[in-house]
């Protein structure tokens, strides 16, 4: 009789995966929009609670799953945003159903896929085995591909197709990298399981064959970097965000990118653990900077509001990658904080944008004007969100950008100046569009829209709170993670 299997925390760990998986199966069978939407929210909540319980009670690492400071951060963030997004999608999808853009059949599929995605992401985050992690991330990609194409318009299918092809190639590269890591580890850890298990890999990181690791990192960087949406591998991201249902855009920006980033970070740790291997920092820094500046310029010419914010996601992912590439306690802390803040803010923005697009009946920026006049709550919500994402105080992103920029400037002035340049370019574009969209004479329908403001303002409130006051435990925890990241 093995008592440890009844250890509550272990149950929690399993629960984080089991709940969504089961829910997915149930949702496939469950007809009726009302019930399934509720169930979707409930299961997301349950998953969130399970994830939170992991904070207090942490199980010992197993061969397949494990929990440490780093991935618990991601898991909690993912489950939380997953929960709020499910709440948002409940009202959003309701509207889509009314206007007949989606049919009940597809909704059943949609909710099932949503939970599958949750499951896949949690699995990817909690996996203690690089192979398993790879499988999970591929699964997540496939599900999102299907959801992006769910509207079955020409553009949607095209976006999904593009996403699918580029994603598959990324996956392939990532797999090759994984295999190389295994090869590098095998001489040290012997054949079989151990050579693919994180906890052992990290312990023996110093002993792995450095040259192999270098090659492996190239493949992993490109493979998972495709998922993160780093330029020049970003091509799938804007269309996928623009054409899919808005809740999915929120999940993509808020979560999936983070999961891929998490994978990158893991392998960065592995590289950093091996003095003989080439330092991963410069590569991440340069790709991050490239994405940041590139996305900043791309923001100017956008006509579709969701696509614009998708580019802004690329920009911020670049910034986060940059921060982690720089390393050091300040930059890492800034990177973590920025990632959290970005997930919250960007999903909040997509909540707002989703309702706005429904209210105005279009996603074209040119046809959306004077929101603060026509739909004050949504309009000001969008304004706050954009102000936050643009990195203005007192909202949280300012703090992280402050840390990243100032700590960088003391170490590599030139990089910091490039960074500031990119930030300024992006800022100009965002504000330009905000000016047109939120202010001026309103155009289009001014009819009030039935919207759920709770998730939107919950996120914004969190971002604001974080910008003003970070609770001590959170700080200590982030600092621990930052130290972990070196």
């Amino acid at each position, binding site marked *: 009789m093995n008592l440890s299997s009844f250890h509550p925390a272990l149950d929690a760990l399993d629960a984080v995966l089991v709940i969504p998986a089961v829910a997915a199966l149930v949702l496939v069978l469950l007809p009726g929009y009302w019930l399934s939407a509720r169930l979707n929210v409930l299961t997301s909540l349950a998953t969130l609670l399970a994830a939170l319980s992991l904070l207090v009670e942490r199980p010992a690492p197993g061969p397949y799953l494990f929990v440490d400071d780093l991935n618990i951060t991601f898991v909690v963030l993912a489950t939380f945003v997953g929960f709020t997004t499910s709440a948002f999608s409940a009202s959003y999808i309701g509207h889509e159903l009314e206007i007949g853009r989606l049919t009940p059949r597809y909704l059943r599929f949609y909710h099932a896929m949503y939970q599958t995605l949750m499951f896949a992401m949690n699995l990817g985050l909690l996996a203690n*085995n690089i*192979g*398993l992690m*790879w*499988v999970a991330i*591929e699964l997540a990609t*496939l599900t999102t591909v299907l959801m992006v194409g769910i509207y*079955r*318009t*020409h553009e949607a*299918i*095209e976006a999904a*197709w*593009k996403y*699918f*092809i580029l994603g*598959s*190639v990324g*996956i*392939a590269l990532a*797999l*090759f990298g994984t*295999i*190389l890591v*295994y*090869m590098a580890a*095998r*001489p040290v850890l*012997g*054949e*079989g*399981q151990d*050579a*693919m298990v994180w906890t052992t890999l990290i312990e023996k990181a110093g002993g792995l*064959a450095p*040259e*192999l690791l*270098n*090659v492996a990192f190239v493949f992993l960087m490109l493979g998972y970097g495709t998922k993160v949406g780093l330029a020049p591998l970003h091509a799938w991201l804007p269309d996928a965000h623009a054409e899919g249902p808005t809740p999915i855009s929120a999940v993509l920006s808020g979560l999936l990118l983070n999961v891929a980033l998490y994978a990158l970070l893991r392998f960065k740790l592995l590289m950093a653990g091996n003095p003989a291997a080439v330092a991963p920092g410069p590569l991440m820094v340069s790709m991050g900077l490239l994405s940041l500046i590139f996305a900043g310029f791309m923001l100017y010419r956008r006509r579709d509001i969701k696509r614009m914010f998708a580019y802004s996601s690329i920009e911020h992912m670049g910034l986060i990658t940059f921060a982690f590439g720089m390393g050091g306690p300040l930059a890492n802390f800034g990177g973590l904080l920025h990632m959290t803040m970005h997930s919250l803010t960007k999903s909040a923005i997509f909540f707002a944008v989703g309702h706005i697009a429904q209210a105005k009946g279009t996603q074209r920026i040119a046809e959306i004007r004077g929101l603060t006049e026509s739909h004050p709550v949504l309009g000001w919500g969008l304004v706050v969100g954009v102000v936050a994402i643009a990195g203005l105080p007192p909202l949280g992103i300012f703090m992280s950008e402050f840390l990243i920029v100032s700590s960088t400037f003391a170490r590599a002035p030139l990089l910091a100046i490039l960074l500031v340049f990119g930030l300024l370019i992006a800022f100009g574009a965002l504000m330009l569009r905000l000016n047109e969209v939120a202010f001026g004479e309103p155009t289009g329908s001014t009819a009030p829209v039935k919207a759920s403001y709770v998730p939107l303002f919950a996120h914004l409130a969190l971002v604001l709170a974080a910008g003003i006051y970070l609770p001590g435990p959170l700080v200590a925890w982030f600092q621990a993670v930052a130290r972990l990241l070196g």
Partner: protein
Amino acid sequence: MNGAWFDIAHMLAGGLVLLSLMLLYQDRMFALLNVFALHAVLLSASVAWQAQIQGAPHLYITALIALALKAVVIPVALRRIVVRLGIHRTIETVVGIGPTMLAGMGLVALSMVVMLKATAQADPLAREDLAFALSVVLLGLLMMVTRRNAVSQVIGFMSLENGLILAATGAKGMPLVVEISIAFSVLIAFIVIGVFLFRIRERFDSVDVSALDAFRGERR
């Protein structure tokens, strides 16, 4: 004894690279499909051989999948697609065959350099395997990049993936190989279905959704 095993494995892997190069200079659709079928057969052979010398029976499954799916089902399916969609039988290339071949040579050389340098202390079998696998992967990617035609891009992707399977099986004692190969088969199935579904005649980008609803038995 060991030497003989090694030579055979080496030969099989090398043959894969050779076939990838051959894939590169095919300019007829059906010829391409045939060569790819051969590619898959060779892969399954090498996988089986690995299973034999590593004494890892589960690899036989992988070999079987490769044989069944890639050597038989998919080429046939693609052939039917080509016929059904009336795709040009000739393959239009971005850069000419000659330059592509040169580039392919260069890639093979590159992967040799990278891998042989990287895996100095790994056992020779793994080294060769990895080097060949990498070149197969790169050649597959090169094919996807230099061919305008959707079907040949699918083929390119599949040969790339063959390279991965080769690497995975070459990595002695690597867990999850079977699962991974299955996952990849699913992926490829998706792609082929997609090509068929979206009536992708020429370029990957030219998706044609008009058939979609008809296919799903719905009317807008």
